């Protein structure tokens, strides 16, 4: 690291007096005003540590217990190793090497769209999701929900038996009952048969459904997704004049504008978009021309946090601004009068953006959020066409869904038919409408119409809908069944199972085979037989299964005569701007529409920006909160029409004024032991007319709701932790990242330096690319067997994540956030590690490759190391957080990492198990470990390629190249800890035209 301008004789300042000049970065209101409560919080190692002992133990009793513990503690360690069984195969599968994981390509779906993934399998147990480098929607990365989906496979709350009226039945009895009921339908052509599914892109399932509709021509197939992409597909279809869908090629986009679109972390193409986006955020690489992202959004999102310019406005205002943009660009039908009732700052902003977009014709892209109106989507297609982006950065293709549907129209029609008594047989596949249908449709009552005599619920768990159906058929997890699905660009992705169904569940393919009168055909054959005809040969099929993708299956581009966006512009223009408070309803950033509610990893994953866990709170801007006299933790009654909901409030810096945001997916009653009774059921406010938002009024009804936000946990007391500059400033002052804090030379230590003759592992994190999407956090949890602790323990500051993402805000005022910075903090692997010096039992020691090894079996739990760690990256098992009992959860664990017990400290090890594997593999082949041999879990998952890892002794390694940059700095360099994990200061690419105005 270059630090010529530092001298070693400068007295070390006490940290509290470190000069905090320069831009101010803060994490919360309490920190910004430096309240006493905040000081109290940061000066304690574990805030709220002294959780009172249950039952009011007095001091005498406490001492007795401690004495007994000390006396017996040693004795308990004296166990003789139990005898273990070792069980070989009877016939070992060919090519399987026991003790080495295999990787298989498969597909995970969300809302019907496929994510191309690789699954790590240990002797037949799928344990970890990784991206499929050969899949266009992944390119090797993976988002947090897909990453966490492997836990759902082993969820002990999955339904394990087929039931009829709550009683266990056999599959055969269901086949008989269904066949009998369908037989009765045959005479009417299936007039009383209805099928409700989620959004389906699977070609083989669609073929089965088509056959079903051929067999029962009067039957109907409906689709419903709670977090639907209806607006996007409807909007694109109107624009194209035929069923259509839009996806983007952001690698070539120099300027991007997001209209309340969190496109880097949400939606089927987000991982690919993030890849393409991230590759253009390497300011230090002279070959890379940085892109520029403008973000208009209501609630702060990951995409907003990385934007070069971000403006908070309500969704209604954003639509008007889009219209103003369209008018500026000369989109047909958009008039300049559109922006008359917008504020000046926003008008100026959109003017500048319009100029910038215009000067990058064909090399820019405008994106609208899936929760915006269909009209906005139509208008955005018009804008992109006007900018010459269609065909270059924006692709208009045939629809990806097998049968493009309007979810709301479908559901309305179904409810009407149910109420009208036209439905005798209702089959629901993978949907939970009783929980997530719009409240005005009252799906539960419609289901209770006695004329519907045969109701089947096919789902992974006996959810809210299951009790209303006579039959519940356990559905397979995607790792248990054959299938297929299409990715965001239409690429057909094959889903191969990794394990036999754990509980005898059936796939939708297999249930539909019963409907088609061919029960008993295995899912494998159904999918194989569908494709073998099209692929031509068994060899091609095997190739496709191996790769996970069917080559050349991307959606066909549409050639359209013209884009019809005029009517959409008129529709937006005629919408009045709401005068009062608006509610924006959004899918949850972690548990989505509630389908992941029982997934502990996702529940405990701090939600982007708000850092809330285990809850959905009503997000409200500081100014709006002040106007309503509200603060975080207050309970409000939300009134929307005649619907009300009481909900906790979370004051969110960066949120737009005049709008509040509530996330779906909570308030579930039959999700399972993890997800039940958490948060608030925002769905109860949602009607089919106010699907993504409604005018609301708030009334304060209470205070003191405990919210588990990790935002203030593990504070490092802002000491130049975040460094950023504009790309121009960086070009002029390449050394800027080193001008703020004191740095030491390597010789400044009382201890002799560690020699590193072989490998010396190091990591660099490019803050210019980190969106804070949490994919790394969940990847780390999955790879390293990290425990979930629960809401109470999170409130006590005891979450176990080895890698956290700190959220910093800039701006002089709490209400006006200027920027956001994400700072991922794993263990810094210090060269002069404070933790190592204080461990009385040498349980954390320096390795010969520069890691701060953590030896669990030596740790006695003094927590001195954590106390002495300035980065607050050590996590202590205060209780037995790991589930050592549930058999299915044991299957999930990574066998290469120790499962930690109570009383043990743990922390990031740079995925030392992967290092060992790479070192051993290299040793076997008598070569050195090559750059790229070791990929840490976080690095692998990162969709924006913001993490480099490797051997810093290797001058050719990517990480070495990163660390040689002027941007490279270390956290708390004034402590002379000399971390191995360093950061590349964040470089923004702002538009000077907007800088002046701000």
């Amino acid at each position: 690291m270059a630090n010529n301008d530092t001298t070693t004789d400068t007295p070390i300042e006490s940290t509290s007096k470190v000069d905090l000049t320069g831009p101010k970065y803060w994490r919360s209101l309490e920190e910004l005003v430096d309240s006493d409560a905040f000081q109290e919080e940061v000066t304690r190692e574990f805030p709220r540590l002294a959780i009172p002992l249950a039952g009011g133990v007095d001091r005498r009793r406490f001492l007795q217990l401690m004495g007994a513990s000390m006396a017996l503690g040693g004795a308990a360690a004296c166990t003789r190793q139990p005898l273990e069984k070792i069980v070989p195969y009877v016939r070992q599968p060919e090519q399987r090497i026991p003790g080495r994981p295999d990787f298989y390509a498969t597909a995970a779906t969300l809302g019907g769209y496929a994510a191309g993934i690789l699954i790590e399998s240990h002797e037949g147990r799928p344990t970890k999701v990784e991206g499929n480098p050969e899949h266009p929607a992944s390119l090797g990365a993976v988002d947090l929900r897909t990453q966490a989906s492997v836990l759902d496979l082993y969820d002990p709350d999955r339904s394990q038996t087929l039931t009829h009226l709550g009683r266990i039945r056999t599959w055969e009895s269901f086949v008989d009952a269904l066949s009998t009921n369908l037989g009765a339908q045959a005479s009417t052509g299936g007039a009383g048969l209805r099928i409700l599914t989620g959004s389906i892109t699977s070609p083989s399932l669609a073929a089965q459904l088509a056959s079903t509709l051929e067999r029962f021509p009067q039957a109907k197939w409906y689709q419903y997704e709670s977090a639907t992409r209806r607006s996007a597909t409807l909007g694109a279809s109107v624009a194209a004049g035929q069923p259509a869908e839009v996806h983007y090629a952001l690698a070539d986009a120099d300027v991007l504008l997001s209209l309340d679109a969190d496109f880097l972390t949400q939606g089927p193409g987000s991982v690919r978009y993030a890849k393409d986006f991230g590759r253009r955020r390497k300011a230090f690489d002279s070959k890379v021309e940085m892109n520029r992202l403008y973000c208009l959004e209501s609630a702060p999102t990951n995409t907003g946090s990385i934007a070069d310019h971000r403006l908070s406005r309500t969704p209604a205002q954003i639509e008007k601004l889009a219209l103003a943009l369209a008018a500026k660009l000369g989109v047909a039908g958009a008039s300049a009068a559109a922006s008359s009732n917008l504020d000046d700052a926003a008008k100026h902003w959109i003017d500048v953006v319009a100029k910038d977009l215009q000067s990058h014709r064909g090399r820019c892209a405008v994106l609208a959020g899936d929760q915006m109106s269909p009209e906005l989507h139509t208008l955005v297609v018009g804008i992109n066409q006007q900018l010459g982006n269609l065909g270059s950065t924006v692709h208009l293709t045939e629809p990806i869904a097998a049968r493009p549907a309007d979810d709301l129209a479908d559901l309305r029609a179904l409810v009407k038919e149910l109420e009208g008594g036209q439905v005798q047989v209702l089959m629901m596949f993978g949907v939970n409408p009783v929980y997530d249908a719009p409240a005005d449709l009252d799906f539960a009552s419609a289901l209770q119409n006695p004329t519907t005599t045969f109701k089947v619920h096919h789902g992974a768990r006996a959810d809210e809908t299951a009790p209303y159906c006579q039959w519940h058929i356990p559905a397979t997890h995607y790792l248990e069944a054959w299938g297929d699905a299409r990715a965001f660009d239409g690429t057909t992705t094959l889903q191969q199972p990794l394990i036999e169904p754990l509980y005898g569940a059936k796939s939708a393919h297999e249930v539909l085979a019963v409907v088609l009168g061919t029960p008993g055909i295995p899912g494998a054959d159904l999918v194989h037989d569908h494709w073998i005809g099209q692929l031509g040969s068994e060899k091609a099929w095997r190739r496709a299964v191996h790769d996970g993708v069917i080559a050349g299956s991307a959606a066909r581009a549409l050639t359209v005569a013209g884009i019809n966006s005029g009517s959409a512009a008129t529709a937006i223009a005629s919408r009045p701007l709401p005068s009062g408070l608006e509610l924006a309803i959004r899918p949850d950033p972690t548990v989505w529409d509630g389908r992941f509610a029982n997934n502990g990893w996702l529940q405990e994953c701090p939600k982007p920006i708000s850092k809330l866990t285990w809850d959905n709170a009503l997000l409200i801007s500081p100014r709006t909160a002040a106007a309503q006299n509200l603060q975080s933790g207050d309970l409000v009654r939300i009134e929307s029409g005649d619907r009300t909901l009481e909900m906790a409030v979370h004051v969110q810096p960066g949120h737009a004024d005049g709008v509040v945001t509530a996330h779906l997916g909570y308030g579930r009653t039959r999700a399972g032991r993890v997800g039940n009774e958490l948060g608030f059921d925002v769905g109860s406010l949602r009607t089919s007319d106010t699907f993504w938002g409604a005018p609301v009024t708030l009334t304060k009804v209470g205070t003191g709701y405990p919210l588990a936000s990790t935002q203030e946990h593990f504070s490092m007391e802002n000491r130049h932790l975040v460094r950023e500059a504009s790309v121009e400033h960086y070009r002029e002052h390449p050394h800027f990242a080193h001008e703020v804090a004191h740095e030491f030379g390597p010789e400044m230590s009382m201890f002799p330096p560690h020699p590193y003759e072989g490998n010396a592992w190091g990591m660099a994190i490019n803050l210019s690319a980190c969106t804070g999407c949490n994919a790394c956090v969940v990847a780390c949890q999955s790879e390293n067997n990290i425990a979930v602790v629960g809401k109470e323990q999170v409130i006590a500051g005891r979450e176990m994540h080895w890698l956290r993402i700190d959220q910093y805000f800039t701006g002089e005022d709490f209400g006006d956030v200027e920027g956001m910075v994400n700072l991922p903090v794993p263990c810094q692997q210090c060269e002069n590690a404070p933790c190592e010096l204080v461990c009385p039992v040498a349980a954390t020691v320096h390795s010969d490759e520069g890691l701060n090894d953590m030896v669990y079996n030596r740790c006695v739990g003094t927590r001195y190391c954590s106390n002495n760690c300035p980065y607050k990256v050590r996590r202590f098992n205060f209780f037995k957080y790991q589930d050592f009992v549930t058999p299915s959860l044991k299957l999930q664990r990574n066998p290469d990492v120790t499962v930690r017990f109570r009383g043990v400290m743990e922390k990031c090890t740079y995925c030392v198990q992967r290092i060992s594997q790479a070192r051993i593999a290299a040793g076997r082949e008598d070569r050195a470990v090559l750059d790229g041999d070791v990929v840490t879990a976080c690095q692998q998952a990162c969709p924006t390629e913001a993490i480099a890892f490797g051997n810093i002794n290797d001058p050719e390694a990517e990480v070495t190249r990163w660390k040689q940059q002027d941007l490279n700095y270390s956290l708390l360099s004034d402590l002379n800890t000399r971390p191995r994990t360093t950061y590349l200061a964040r470089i923004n690419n702002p538009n000077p035209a907007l800088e002046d105005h701000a």
Partner: protein
Amino acid sequence: MSQIFHPSTNTISRVSIFAVVLTVAFAGWIAAALDRSAIVTRKNVILEQPVPFSHDHHVGEIGIDCRYCHTSVETSAFAGLPPTSTCMNCHNELFKDSPMLEPVRESFRSGQPIEWTRVNDVPDFVYFNHSIHVAKGIGCTSCHGKINKMPITWKAESLKMEWCLACHRDPAQQVRPREEVFNVNWDPSSITDVRRAELIDEYNIQSKTSCSTCHR
């Protein structure tokens, strides 16, 4: 006022101080000895197995190579325990009516694996890797002893950490030419210390004693 303590108390107190120290030291010594004894380590202890498999017969007398059964020893952390089908390769012809082998045949018929009792078992927080030791010229017998003389398999070494470290600190003790790794009759005295030092260089053997080498 009379004395509270009798003069002999002085002696008693002196003796008892030493007695306490000695007792504690003795208890510590006993504990350490116990910990290293076969009671805890099961070194040289014969464990009951479903089939009395004899390495003495298969390796010593017949001369089957280790890798015929332990197939993944060169490629994986785990050396591999032969599937029943490997046993049946020979035993569908040889001793095919032996009652001793009935569990093997039963396993092959029913598809239920044979459950062996694990002999060489390190704790779960230790990640031993066979392949790298084999690749670096550490022979099977270095850890598994004279396996070709074991009519039933027992643990030849304690597998305690001090035992592992003895070699990790000085790998030259146990290194042998790669081609001799699977030779159970190899005589360590057949090469000189000079040759051992050469092998250490040739095979690029490092003395890995960092905790994370084995614990993670």
